[in-house]
């Protein structure tokens, strides 16, 4: 499988002086490592086995709220392949705010493209219900009292009222933005809801909570 590399080319902000935008998923303030065992509370251990998701529709704003740059590109993130770098194609001055969609909008969901980031081999395509999983997370946590002490989330769906693609707006503070997965998992009751595989209200609530944990 050809690795998906984000190829948006950017330059610098007069305030921030970054020539590229990076993304990193953290756990307990450090880069999340696949299969590592983390002690999240005394005697409570958690491990992430798979983390994949989509970003799309990046917008870069200046202080006046004007759009400096818009990228409609669909970006696929896979923890197994590490952090993602977003390079923008033109020199931007004064980026103040960045907006993106965590997931895919309805048009992308039904485009039927099946190529590049849409390739079903990436494991994000929903064959039974045309569309894509926005966010896929799989792991184990010893306090979950199901048979395998595991959790698995396939978060997606674009139909109202439970469209699970979430807009995220961040004040730009540097060249790297993060997702604190540990903070999200602390806020989500894994013991109660540890498997979500279909669109609906719970998937929607999951996506709403998740998007709060992105930051610069």
């Amino acid at each position, binding site marked *: 499988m050809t690795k998906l590399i984000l190829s948006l080319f950017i330059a610098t902000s007069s305030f921030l002086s970054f020539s590229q935008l990076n993304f990193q998923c953290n756990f307990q303030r450090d880069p999340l490592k696949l299969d590592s065992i983390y002690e999240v509370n005394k005697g409570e251990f958690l491990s992430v086995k798979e983390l994949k998701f989509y970003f799309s529709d990046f917008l870069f704003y200046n202080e006046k709220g004007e759009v400096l740059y818009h990228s409609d590109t669909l970006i696929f993130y896979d923890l197994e392949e590490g952090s993602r770098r977003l390079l923008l194609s033109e020199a931007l001055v004064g980026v103040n705010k960045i907006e993106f969609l965590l997931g895919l909008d309805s048009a992308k969901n039904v485009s039927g493209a099946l190529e590049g980031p849409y390739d079903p081999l990436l494991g994000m395509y929903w*064959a039974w219900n*045309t569309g894509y999983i926005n966010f896929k997370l799989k792991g184990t946590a010893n306090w979950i009292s199901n048979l395998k002490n595991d959790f698995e989330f396939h978060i997606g*769906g674009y139909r109202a009222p439970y469209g699970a693609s979430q807009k995220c707006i961040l004040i730009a503070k540097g060249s790297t933005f993060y997702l604190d997965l540990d903070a999200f998992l602390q806020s989500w009751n894994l013991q109660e809801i540890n498997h979500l595989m279909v669109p609906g209200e719970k998937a929607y609530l999951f996506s709403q909570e998740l998007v709060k944990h992105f930051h610069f």
Partner: protein
Amino acid sequence: MLKRHLFFFLLSFSLLALTFSTLDTHPFYQPQNWPKPSYNFKGNPLDVEKFKLGRALFYDPILSRDSSISCSTCHLQYTAFTHVDHPTSHGIEGRIGKRNSPSLANLAWRNDFHWDGGVLNLNSQAINPITHHDEMDMTLDEVLRRLDHSPIYAPAFEKTFGTKDIRPFHLVKALAQYTVALVSANAKYDKVMRKEEGVQFSEQELKGYNLFKQNCISCHSGPTLGGDLFKANGLSLDPELNDFGRMTITGKTKDSLLFRVPSLRNIEYSFPYMHDGRYKKLKDVLDHYAHLEDHQVLSKELKRKKPNLSSNDQKDLIAFLKTLSDKQFLFDERFKYAPLK
């Protein structure tokens, strides 16, 4: 006498020539007075070589995990591209699915697929049966590995798509080149509608057609005679299958027990009927509609007007339904299995 022989010789020659000429032309066509197709041909332009590749794949069990079933196992041409006499089809290892395999025809005019409308593209539709546990139970990785190693398919994909790196979108586009070509618009019904010379309904068929217009056409509408609507038709939930239809896709309780209104084309050949194949004969289907009651889950059309069909009406209606059989389509040589050369 000589003239007569000459006529038949020329006719046979013309038919033979037509048969050979069609091999060089993609079989898809736009029937007269039909609306514009929904299929995005720009994304997968018609190409007869890709059609031939798709046809070979459609008939090849290489797509199933144990190489035991192909697409054609559940979609046989002679029986309206469905699995005749099977209420619900079986996949590999005799696994039984939940739904009756749908008849395939005029897919270019469809906006969504499956009994619940969960699939929105003809191209991507093929991924479902290939990867479904109860059907072919394959992984796409394994399909591609097999195609890559095939002395037939690897060069065929290179020839048609110009690539040695076969991806899922190549596979599904090839299959769609075949399925989009399945146009059925040459039944007696079509010929009568086109006012072709010497073709007319019999008295019984005409009575049936009038009954059809009074009782069925609001849902089985348009030139495809159904296909794009989802309706409740009074069928009770099968507690074993536990299939709520459209609600599975939309998550809305109002869509509980709604299923696709199927196209009636070639219905004579596509038995058994309904989403779970519970009715063996057309008569059983019409009996069902003739005995609907208020307590059943019904579409607004059926609530407003329950079909009042006497035994004779049912016979007339069946006579009409048989005019929807398109034998030219069902026996079209171009859709039959043909190995890649």
